[in-house]
């Protein structure tokens, strides 16, 4: 991944086909095409959310967000992200350290396992926890006897969220750590630094931008996940209802302004993420080359 340099680090100017010498009509056509694709397929639907939310003015939309259940959903969403993201960050760091700086049997299996949640349908991701912890599942009767609820409660939502956001941090860090090698760490150790000290003083500063990027994407997904969470949450208003689920509930109750107001809030949170992501890319240009 890191072998791919971003386009802006290619200073070689092209004497003939540089953008400035393209005929105007080609440039206009190209720009129209790009804006057409992006606008029509992405920006237009996104704009619909805000238009619908504000269709009766600012007041009803604001009320919908300030309403008790919506605030509870917002709080739950933030709590879930606050648990799932640090968990995955910690795991991502340990796993990428193992993968990038060590050789051990089963390494490629571990890498495949890390990637696995990307290719499992969110519905299935929720289902596996229902199967194990649900009332009719393996531990269901035991859990019920001990008064622990996982499915249709917050722990289940956390588990499902952790599962779907699992690969984000590790996938950013593995190529980064592989490219950096272990020379600097070995130098630190040979001069007497302890393992923890080496990590904090040498490894951590080297990976901080990649880590921030991974955490950002992980957080965006954790706050927006619907499919997996929908399977394990009992859709109890004010208790196991996250923001994305709340959008669906409001929609099903024909409270369109409310649904779109809450969806608009989610979009705004995502746009903040996007702004931070762009800033990170400017701060650390080689991140560009990471596809997803």
């Amino acid at each position, binding site marked *: 991944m890191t072998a791919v340099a971003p386009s802006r680090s290619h200073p070689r100017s092209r004497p003939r086909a540089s953008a400035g010498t393209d005929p105007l009509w080609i440039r206009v056509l190209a720009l129209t095409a*790009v804006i057409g694709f992006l606008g029509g397929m992405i920006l237009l639907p996104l704009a619909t959310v805000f238009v619908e939310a504000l269709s009766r003015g600012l007041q009803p939309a604001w009320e919908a967000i300030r309403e008790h259940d919506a605030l509870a959903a917002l709080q739950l969403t933030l709590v879930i992200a606050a648990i799932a993201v640090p968990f995955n960050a910690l795991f991502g760091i340990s796993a990428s350290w193992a993968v990038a700086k060590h050789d051990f049997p089963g390494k490629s299996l571990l890498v495949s396992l890390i990637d696995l949640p990307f290719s499992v349908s969110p519905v299935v991701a929720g289902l596996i926890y229902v199967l194990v912890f649900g009332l009719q599942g393996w531990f269901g009767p035991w859990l019920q006897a001990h008064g622990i609820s996982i499915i249709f409660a917050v722990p289940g939502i956390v588990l499902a969220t952790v599962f779907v956001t699992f690969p984000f941090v590790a996938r950013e860090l593995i190529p980064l750590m592989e490219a950096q090698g272990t020379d600097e760490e070995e130098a630190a150790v040979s001069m007497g630094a302890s393992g923890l000290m080496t990590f904090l003083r040498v490894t951590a500063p080297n990976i901080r931008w990649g880590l921030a990027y991974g955490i950002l994407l992980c957080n965006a997904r954790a706050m927006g996940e619907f499919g997996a969470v929908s399977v394990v949450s009992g859709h109890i208003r004010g208790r196991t209802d996250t923001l994305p689920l709340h959008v669906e509930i409001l929609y099903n109750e024909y409270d369109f302004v409310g649904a779109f107001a809450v969806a608009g809030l989610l979009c705004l949170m995502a746009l903040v993420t996007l702004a931070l992501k762009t800033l990170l890319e400017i701060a650390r240009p080689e991140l560009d080359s990471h596809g997803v």
Partner: protein
Amino acid sequence: MTDTARLPKPKPGPLDYLARWPLRLWVAGTALFLYAPLITLMVFSFNNSRRNIVWRGFTLDYYAQVLQDESLQHAFVNSLTIAFVSTLLSVILGAATALLLWRFRFTFKLGLEGALSIPIVVPEICMGVAFLVFFTKVVPWPTALPWPLNLGAIIIAHVSFSFSFVASVVRARLASFNREMEEAARDLGASEWRTLMDIIVPHMRPGLFAGGLLAFTLSLDDFVITFFTSGPDTITFPVKVYSMIRFSVTPEVNAASTLLIVITVALTAIALRMQGSDAGRDPS
């Protein structure tokens, strides 16, 4: 599950954080919590019992039932059709977007590139409800069309999120293109079009395949956006599985989910391999 517990070094050095028991326990525990349920799901799809708890011997009955179930078949054919068509369209649109953003300089380029990653950061539910309104108010989509055409709305919705993933992958691939190749082709008298088709497109090819496979899996797995854009006749496989779970978790659900997992995992593995190998092979 405990791969990391098999680190070969007998005496952990200061850097072998993972050779210490707290971190091993952490990694193994995480892997257990995440993957044991997945394996349970798959193993118990072969269990010869209506209940999911006790193992009663091996059977393929539930697979036979899944494969004979007409509504599941219908959903599966829908899913595959949507995935094929939307992948084709996303690859074309995504490649064109990547090429244009790479080739031309625009005034709002940063903004346009930001717009490209909107589907990556915006929650799917937002796009889902947005498309619902989009297809009822903005571009009213007729509901009573004959079979492949009634999938049109879902296909468009799928293209809208997967084409930007394709564009990201292809753009990463294009970044490694050596522009001297293009100059050489032009110096030797090739036209712009000829250079594009003979020099640039072959370079993009691994990215196109990887992006296409990614789009295919995303479309096949997608639940939320389909859930909001599908009607009674346009159920897809994940949406069908979801409604089966809502009813009750039966071994048929396990079998259907296992099929879905196997297909998408295989496709993603191929996609990631292609994406990984093309980056390493061609340092610029």
